[in-house]
């Protein structure tokens, strides 16, 4: 069904500095349309910093990011969202006081044409729009198999399900590129398998390009098309899973130096 296409996201010579600490130095890689691209690396390798650059949370000190032909360096998260990039968070950032349904509905915000003042009245066109958006959200809820928890405040759900809601909220944006920050961290084997299945399904059914961070090699190697490996803020490997697995630098980074 899906076919990997042209380069959709191109990261060129990105460096990020926090005071004197270089979190990322001179990182370049590209992401093609419809592919699953993984960024892996040991703790502190700069994976999340990389994702935060693409997402507009961090401003890189050098380099630029090109998304669908548009190059940018200084963007905020909202502008990035408007361009069609959604993300999930490593440490859950759901709206805790709200129900599962409301959380996912917020993801439709950019697709609501009526402005906030109209919506405040909830009358006529705004009301019809709300119903139309609700239908889309219900489809996502079905897709993620969380129908039973629709009205439950997310704070009360077990961790694995909260991760699913986080994914649902990002999916509700109908993004072209989906950034997943350690979607399987802290999960048990069963939950990990579920999450893998959802990621593959999203990629196949909606054709969404996925950029995924994990530090667990095993899972990533199974589902990704290409893998970037970071260590201490540098890129030490890039290619298909098998190539990366055979790369001596990568082996050293994960297993320590051989004496």
């Amino acid at each position, binding site marked *: 069904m899906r076919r990997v296409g042209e380069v959709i996201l191109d990261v060129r010579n990105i460096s990020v500095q926090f005071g004197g600490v270089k979190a990322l130095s001179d990182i370049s890689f590209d992401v093609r349309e419809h592919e699953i691209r993984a960024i892996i690396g040991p703790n502190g390798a700069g994976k999340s910093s990389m994702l935060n650059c693409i997402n507009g949370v961090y401003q890189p000190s050098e380099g630029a990011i090109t998304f669908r032909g548009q190059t940018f360096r200084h963007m905020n998260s*909202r502008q*990035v*969202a408007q361009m069609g990039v959604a993300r999930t968070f490593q440490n859950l950032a759901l709206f805790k006081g709200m129900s599962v349904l409301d*959380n996912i509905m917020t993801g439709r*915000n950019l697709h*609501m044409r009526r402005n906030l003042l109209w919506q405040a009245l909830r009358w006529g066109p*705004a009301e019809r729009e709300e119903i139309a*958006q609700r239908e889309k959200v219900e489809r996502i809820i079905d897709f993620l198999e969380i129908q039973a928890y629709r009205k439950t405040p997310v*704070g009360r759900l077990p961790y694995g399900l909260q991760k699913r809601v986080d994914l649902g909220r990002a999916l509700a944006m109908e993004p072209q590129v989906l950034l997943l920050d350690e979607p399987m961290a802290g999960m048990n084997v069963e939950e990990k398998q579920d999450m893998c299945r959802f990621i593959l399904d999203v990629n196949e059914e909606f054709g969404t390009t996925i950029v995924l961070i994990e530090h667990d090699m095993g899972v990533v190697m199974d589902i990704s098309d290409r893998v970037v490996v970071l260590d201490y803020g540098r890129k030490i490997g890039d290619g298909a899973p098998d190539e990366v697995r055979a790369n001596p630098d990568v082996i050293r980074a994960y297993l320590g130096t051989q004496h």
Partner: protein
Amino acid sequence: MAFFIETLIGGLMAGMLYSLIALGFVLIYKASGVFNFAQGAMVLFAALAMARFAEWIPQWVPALANPIVANVLAFALALGVMVLVAIAVEKLALSRLVNQEGITLLMATLGFTYFLDGLGQTLFGNDIYKIDVGMPKDPVIVAESLFQGGILISKEDLYSALIATVLVALLALFFQKTATGRALRAVADDHQAAQSIGIPLSTIWIIVWSVAGFVALVAGVIWGSKLGVQFSLSLVALKALPVVILGGLTSIPGAIVGGLVIGVGEKLSEIYIGPMLGGGIEIWFAYVLALLFLLVRPQGLFGEKIIDRV
């Protein structure tokens, strides 16, 4: 019995007005996670604007001397001023403090309090002004057939309580049932996540502070027509602190119930417990009640209990 009911009704009506001010705190806290110390200053500022505009409009344009026209125009102008205040707060302070700790934002509102107090008195003067929106001052007596002498109700309090009730109901619906309300709650929970799904923080903040400004204006008009518009009006907001502690900072129903409990509690305690303690307990009763609540249920009656993953 009639006396008890009279006290109860009086308490409920006073409580509704406390709720109205507490609502200002809750709105801003829900949407920006800021405990807005400046709410009292906003009430005073709005009331000053209203009182002075109502006075100035007939002077500027004698054709508008009709008190109803002048009051409506003054209300609209004052509302416009509060929206400008909201925009200024967002542009000058909040937009620079995105993702900062709550305590940083609290300090910002503290500074904002002094600024607004000063600005209000510079622009609008620092005398005692009155707001006359035609609130009836005479009391009515009801239920004469049930009780000897009937029950005395202040019409002014009754109308104020009705206005407050309608306003509170509308705001609760707005928050729970509309897409804008949902976006507001989302921003309150997590700035970063809200931005990542494309919710415009600045617009949301301007809306919230404008709504809080509107609530402050209504509270200012009601309290101002009762007590006169003067500096001490900003202290009325202190009455709302025990209300939000009791009801929970994150809950609109909490603000209402909290307000009613405090209003009734104050009046009843003054009459039934007061004599044992030498009277005058109405002034501090609310605070002691809030203190007890903090010991037992720090999140308030309806507040969300925060459980952090460790």
